[in-house]
């Protein structure tokens, strides 16, 4: 019993440190708001004339939503991806500047240390995702409290998985500079091939889909796990799914479990 309380204190300590560091860092917060602003305000509004209807019955993307509404859940996922994967910088920082040793000589088991760190990173990433929700009005997405609660839960599990993924990357990348380049080459392709900014129309048959988009692109979108995360959030926030609704949740939970287990194995080896 006493051991559990001590473990929980340790977990809280590691979590609290991540939260304190992240919320104190203005640069990180600015990143957290500049991305949704660029994607929703600039891209969403800028491309709006190309996606709006000119003749009744004729639109480029046959989805029952506006382009802004369609983009909105994807921007949340983008914000979570950035914050989660950039979290690896904190892991590298700990390793390079010696703080890691302070934790490693403590009585906390390593998996618990990692859990605390990942929970902290996931909390910050969820917060950054939630910042996008403030723009719901702009995107004409009306949200009920239930929707927000379910969305936040999904966002947290997604952030947990992606943060673990960041830790796995950190174990393989040695320098900060290398990581900066690396994270961008990982995040942006994942984002663009997640059906985030263009739909694979479910109303079309598979044959038509392949005509609209080349087979290889459809394939990339379909094997990208982020596709299903975006889809799950769309299901919750604008009630629109391109794929079987259960898949998204399954993929999000699966990523969280898989990446965390691999991260533990990596971390124990250090």
């Amino acid at each position: 019993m006493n051991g559990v309380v001590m473990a929980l204190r340790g977990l809280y300590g590691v979590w609290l440190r991540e939260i304190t560091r992240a919320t104190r860092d203005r640069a990180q917060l600015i990143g957290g708001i500049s991305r949704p602003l660029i994607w929703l305000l600039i891209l969403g509004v800028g491309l709006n004339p190309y996606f709006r209807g000119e003749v009744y019955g004729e639109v480029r993307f046959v989805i029952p939503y506006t382009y802004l509404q369609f983009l909105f859940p994807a921007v949340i996922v983008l914000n979570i991806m950035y914050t989660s994967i950039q979290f690896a910088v904190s892991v590298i920082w700990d390793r390079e500047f010696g703080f890691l040793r302070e934790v490693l000589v403590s009585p906390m088991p390593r998996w618990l240390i990692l859990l605390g760190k990942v929970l902290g990173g996931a909390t910050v990433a969820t917060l950054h995702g939630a910042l996008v929700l403030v723009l719901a009005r702009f995107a004409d997405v009306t949200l009920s409290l239930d929707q927000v609660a379910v969305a936040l839960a999904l966002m947290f599990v997604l952030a947990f998985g992606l943060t673990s993924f960041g830790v796995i990357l950190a174990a393989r990348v040695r320098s900060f500079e290398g990581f900066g380049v690396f994270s961008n080459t990982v995040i942006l392709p994942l984002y663009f091939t997640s059906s985030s900014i263009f739909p694979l129309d479910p109303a079309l048959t598979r044959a038509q889909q392949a005509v609209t988009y080349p087979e290889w692109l459809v394939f990339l979108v379909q094997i990208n796990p982020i596709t299903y995360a975006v889809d799950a959030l769309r299901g919750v926030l604008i009630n629109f799914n391109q794929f079987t609704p259960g898949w998204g949740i399954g993929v999000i939970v699966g990523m969280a479990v898989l990446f965390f287990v691999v991260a533990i194995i990596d971390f124990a080896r250090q």
Partner: protein
Amino acid sequence: MLSGGMISPQPGAGPVSSAIAISVDALSARYGGNTVLDNVTLEIRRGSSFALLGPNGAGKTTLLNILSTLRRPDGGSARVAGADVVRQQTAARRSLGVVFQDSSLDDRLTAWENLEFHGLVYGMAPRHRRERSETVLALVELEDWRDEIVRSFSGGMRRRLEIARALLHEPQILFLDEPTAGLDAQTRVRIWRYLDELRRTRELTVLTTTHYIEEVEGADTICIIDRGRIIAEGSPEALKAEHGSRWLHLTPRDAAALEAIRAARPDAQLLGAHGLALPADDGASTDAFLTAFRDRLTEVRFQDPTLESVFLSLTGRQLRDRADDRRNADKAAGRRGGRR
């Protein structure tokens, strides 16, 4: 080679297991093909102050890493406060406080938050945590800086905070890796005085590694380590007595006197242009010499043995390579400068 046999439990100090804080048995470690620790055996008594003295790269930090469970040994075993450092890591860690050679503070948190983090990670209850934090901050005289971000701290202040942090959870054993470098003399004295008191009252065991002679003069036991092997162990006095020499430094009145002395004592060595040094371990012959040459000397001075000279006579090398030191300092400064 001397072994750990010089240290034995004091008579009537109770069972051996409780009197021994750290025991190291035939420990060896390798990095790639290099042997960093070679069959090291030690025992450190509870409440003692034990110093590992050796040049950079002697294997001190590796030994400390093994003892603090950060690294597995490649052979042999070690116990810390009765817990095996490989099989009972959690128990071993709980009994340890560690001050690392490089800063391991989070420099984006305040002093207080660094302590709070440490207390939480060691599972301390909120009230106890606060009380201890106040105490250790007062010890290192950082009360006024408790809510300042560590990034703004000087090297010495960081060092003090780290020592405070290592003591926060009241460990039985304290590891200090090159501990007091960068501290002013006053603080150093104060911290050692406090540590000595903890050793007396709570049987705190202090294990220090250093390549600064000044750090270890106050230690109970000094263990000289070089190239991964223990080459001498004992109290400072015993080491000096055994391996050091006392010298008589003198300045002859003129060149003729100098020649006369050198003729009489072939073991005399030249010191600079006009000085001479004579081995002075044999009191009788020194007295005879002084009686004979008293009138032909302008200055006479006895030089007691130092640990530096002990190390010199044991290894044939200087303990400190000054150029090497400077390089390390530059490296550390460059790294700090590169910090975001």
